[in-house]
C-alpha cells in the first residue's frame, strides 16, 4: 500500500457526521492499496452535496450535470480506451434516480468505470426531498408521513443490467477493500454506500439506526456480482475509406436535346421501387450530359403508404430543387394518386402517365393511361413507368436509362425486356 495522497490536506467540505467524507477517505485508501498514480485516475462527480468534493481530490476531476455523471464518465472511459486508467463516478441517490438510464446502459455495455452511489435516501442539497431510493417508512422534511413505497434496489438492477462487480456496503468505518475490488474489476462496477444524512435524515427519523433501516428495507449488504464481467472496447476503424471516390463518378456518354429544365414527379406506393426508379431516371440524365436532382417524399413509416419523388433534369445548373408544378407526372398506384392529386391540379399543361386502373385526377394536363401494374406487376410498376415516360418524352436517349439499369443489381432480378413494352 502506497502513501501517495489522493486528497488534499484541507478539511473535506461536508456536514459533521456525513458519510460522504468517509467515501472520499475510503476511496483514497483503496487507490493507495492499488498503488496507482493519482493522475491516472479521473473522478467524475454528479450534482449533490458529494459533488463539491472535486477540490479535495488530487486526481483529474470532472464535474458535470445532475444525473449525467455516469454517461459523461462512460464517454471519458471510452475516449481513453485504456484499462490502466481508473474512471470513478461519485453520485448520490438523486443522481442515480434521474440518471438511471445511464447506469443501466453503462452496466449493459460494460464501460470500464466504477460508480460509487452515495445513498442517503434523500436529496440533501435541496432540502431533503425523497428520491426513488427512499425506503418505505423513511421520513424526510417534505415527506413527514414517510414513504409508502420501497426504494430502488440498485444492486439488483445493476446485476440484471450486466454489471461486472456490484456490492452494497454500510457507509461506516473502513470499506476500502470493497472499493478496491470494484476499481480493479473489468468493465462496469458499482458500489452502493448506505448513508444517512445528518441534516435531514437523522432529524426526520430520530433514533433510527442505519443498519436496521437497511435491513428493514430488505436491502442486503453483500457482494452481488464479483467482477467477472467484460469490459467495453471502443471500436476503432483504423483505415476508414473516403466517402467520395471514383466509384461514385458518373461519366456522361450520351447527349440530350432538351433545352430547358424538365420536372418529373413519380408517385406510387412504398415498396414498389419508386425511389429507385426515380434515382435511375435522374442518374441516366447525368449519363446523358444533363444535370439532375431527385427529392423523395414519403410518410415516416417505411413500407406503408405513398412514395413519391421529384426529379428535375436540366441542361443548366439546377439551383432550386423543388418542383411545385411538374411537367410530367407519373402515377402508378392509388396511394400515388392520393399524394399527387394536388400537383396534378396545379398542372395547366404537360402530361400525366397514370395506371389505367386509376381514375384521372382533375388537371389541365394531357392524360395517358397505361397498364403499368398489369404488364409488370406492382413491384416493378414504377420502374416500367419511368422507362415508358423516357421513351415517349425523350428527355434523353433511352439507352442511358438502360445502361444505368443494367449496371445495377436489379438487372439480375428483372428482365429489362419487360420494361421495354411501349
Amino acid at each position, binding site marked *: 500500500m502506497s502513501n501517495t495522497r489522493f486528497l488534499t490536506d484541507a478539511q473535506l467540505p461536508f456536514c459533521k457526521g456525513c458519510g460522504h467524507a468517509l467515501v472520499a477517505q475510503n476511496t483514497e485508501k483503496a487507490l493507495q492499496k492499488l498503488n496507482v498514480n493519482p493522475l491516472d485516475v479521473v473522478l467524475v462527480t454528479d450534482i449533490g452535496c458529494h459533488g463539491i468534493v472535486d477540490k479535495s481530490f488530487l486526481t483529474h*476531476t470532472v464535474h458535470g*450535470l445532475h444525473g449525467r455523471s455516469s454517461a459523461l464518465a462512460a464517454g471519458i472511459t471510452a475516449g*481513453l480506451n485504456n484499462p490502466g486508467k481508473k474512471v470513478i463516478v461519485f453520485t448520490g441517490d438523486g443522481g442515480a434516480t434521474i440518471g438511471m438510464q445511464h447506469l443501466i446502459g453503462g452496466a449493459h455495455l460494460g464501460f470500464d468505470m466504477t460508480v460509487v452511489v452515495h445513498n442517503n435516501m434523500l436529496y440533501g442539497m435541496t432540502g431533503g426531498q425523497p428520491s426513488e431510493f427512499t425506503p418505505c417508512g423513511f421520513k424526510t422534511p417534505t415527506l413527514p408521513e414517510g414513504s409508502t413505497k420501497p426504494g430502488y434496489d440498485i444492486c439488483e438492477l445493476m446485476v440484471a443490467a450486466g454489471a461486472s462487480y456490484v456490492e452494497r456496503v454500510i457507509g461506516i468505518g473502513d470499506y476500502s477493500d470493497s472499493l478496491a475490488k470494484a476499481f480493479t474489476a473489468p468493465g462496469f462496477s458499482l458500489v452502493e454506500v448506505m448513508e444517512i444524512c445528518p441534516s435531514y435524515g437523522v432529524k426526520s427519523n430520530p433514533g433510527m439506526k442505519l443498519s436496521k433501516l437497511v435491513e428493514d428495507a430488505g436491502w442486503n449488504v453483500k457482494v452481488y456480482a464479483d467482477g467477472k464481467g467484460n469490459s467495453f472496447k471502443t471500436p476503432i476503424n483504423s483505415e476508414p475509406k473516403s*466517402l467520395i471516390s471514383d466509384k461514385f463518378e458518373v461519366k456522361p456518354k450520351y447527349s440530350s436535346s432538351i433545352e430547358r429544365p424538365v420536372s418529373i414527379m413519380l408517385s406510387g406506393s412504398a415498396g414498389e421501387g419508386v425511389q429507385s426508379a426515380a434515382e435511375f431516371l435522374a442518374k441516366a440524365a447525368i449519363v446523358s450530359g444533363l444535370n439532375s436532382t431527385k427529392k423523395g417524399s414519403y410518410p415516416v413509416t417505411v413500407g406503408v403508404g405513398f412514395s413519391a419523388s421529384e426529379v428535375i433534369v436540366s441542361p443548366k445548373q439546377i439551383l432550386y430543387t423543388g418542383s411545385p408544378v411538374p411537367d410530367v407526372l407519373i402515377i402508378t398506384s392509388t396511394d400515388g394518386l392520393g399524394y399527387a392529386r394536388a400537383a396534378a391540379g396545379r398542372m395547366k399543361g404537360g402530361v400525366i402517365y397514370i395506371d389505367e386502373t386509376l381514375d384521372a385526377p382533375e388537371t389541365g394536363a394531357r392524360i395517358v393511361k397505361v397498364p403499368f401494374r398489369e404488364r409488370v406487376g406492382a413491384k416493378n410498376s414504377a420502374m416500367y413507368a419511368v422507362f415508358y415516360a423516357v421513351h415517349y418524352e425523350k428527355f434523353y436517349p433511352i439507352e442511358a436509362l438502360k445502361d444505368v439499369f443494367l449496371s445495377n443489381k436489379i438487372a439480375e432480378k428483372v428482365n429489362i425486356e419487360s420494361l421495354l413494352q411501349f
Partner: protein
Amino acid sequence: MHESKKNLAFIDGSRLITEALVRAGADTFVGYPITPANLLYLYASKRFPTMLAAPDEITTLQWMSGFAVAGHVPVTATSYPGYALMVESIGMAAMMELPMVIVLVQRLGPATGTATCGAQGDLNVVYGTMSGGYSIPTFSISNYHDCWELSAKAVHTAIELRTPVVLLTSKEMVMTLQSFDWSNLPEIQPKKVKHYKGEGTYLPYKADETLVPDFLPVSQNKHQVRITASTHDTKGILQNVLPEAIENTKRLEQKLRKHIDEYTTYELDEQQGSETLIITYDISSQASREAVVHLREKGKKVSLLVAKTLLPIPQIYVDIANRYTRVVVVEENLTGQLRHLLFGAAGRKGVSGVNGIAKMISPTEIVEEVMRYE
C-alpha cells in the same frame, strides 16, 4: 456533354458533410437515430475512426463530452426533438469549453411534427440554447459546396475556440440527390486542439490574449486537469460568484466575439444601383439565388446576402442591410426567425419576409414579394 467536368457524381449532401467533418479533424461520431439525419449516421458508421450508437440524445451529448475530455473531437447529427434533449448538455460542454459539432437537420415541427418534411424552424432554438444569452457558433449550409467547406469550418471553429458548434441544415439538403462536380472542392487541412506545453502548474481555464485556454486531456498524467460545468475559477474549481469566476464565465462570450471575423462567412452578390436586398440562409438559399436570376432577367435590380455564419449574428449583416431601402428575408418558418434576430420585434421600415412551412419556398414566391411594390 459535361466535358469540362471531371468528377461528376450523383450524391446527397450528407456524404459531403460526413467526409468533410472527418477530414477537418473530427474523429468520433456518437449517434442516436432520427429522421431526417439518418444518412449522416449511416455514413458516419463507415467513415469515422470511432462511431458509437448511444441509447438516447442526452447520453449522446454526455458521451461526446467525455470523448472531448479525453482529447477527441466528437460529432453528432440530430433533428429538433433530439436537439431539445441535448440542450442542457450542450450548455455543459460550452461551459467546460469542449470542442464538438452538432449537425442539426431541421424538419417540420412543432414537437414531432413531420419527420420527413424539411423546415427552417430551429434558429431560435439554437439562439436560446444557453442560459444567460451566450452564443454557440452556428453555421448554415446553403448548397453542396457549403456541405464541404462549412462542415470543415464548423470543426475548425470548434477546435480553435474550444466550443460546441452547431451546423444547421435541412432535410432537403442532406437527403436530396443532386448531380455534383466535386473536382473543384478545396483540400481540407485537419486541425488539432492546442495543448498546454508549459512545465509549471496547469490552470485549465487560464487564457492568454486569445481568450481561449490551452487544453490538456485527462489521458496524460503530467498535469492535473479539472473540468467543470459550474461557475469556476481558472483552476477549474467550483466557485460561487467570485469576481475571478464571473470573469471566466464572461470570457465564454468574449472569446466568441473576439474571433467572430475569423469564422464569419457569407455570400454577398450586390448589384450596382439595387435598392432591394434579399437575405436568406440554409435551404431557401438556392431558391433565392434562382429568384435573383429571374429578377435580373426581368430588369429588376436586386442584391443577395446568403448568411452562412448565423450565430452570433455578425454585425456586418445589419450594416449591409442598412444600405438598402427594401430588405426581403426568405426563410422556411412562419414568423421570420432570422428577420427578428436582425431587426428585432419592432422591425424596420422596408423589411418584409417570405415565409412558409411544409414546403420549400419557391423562387416564384420570392420574385412576387420583391416585385410587390413595383
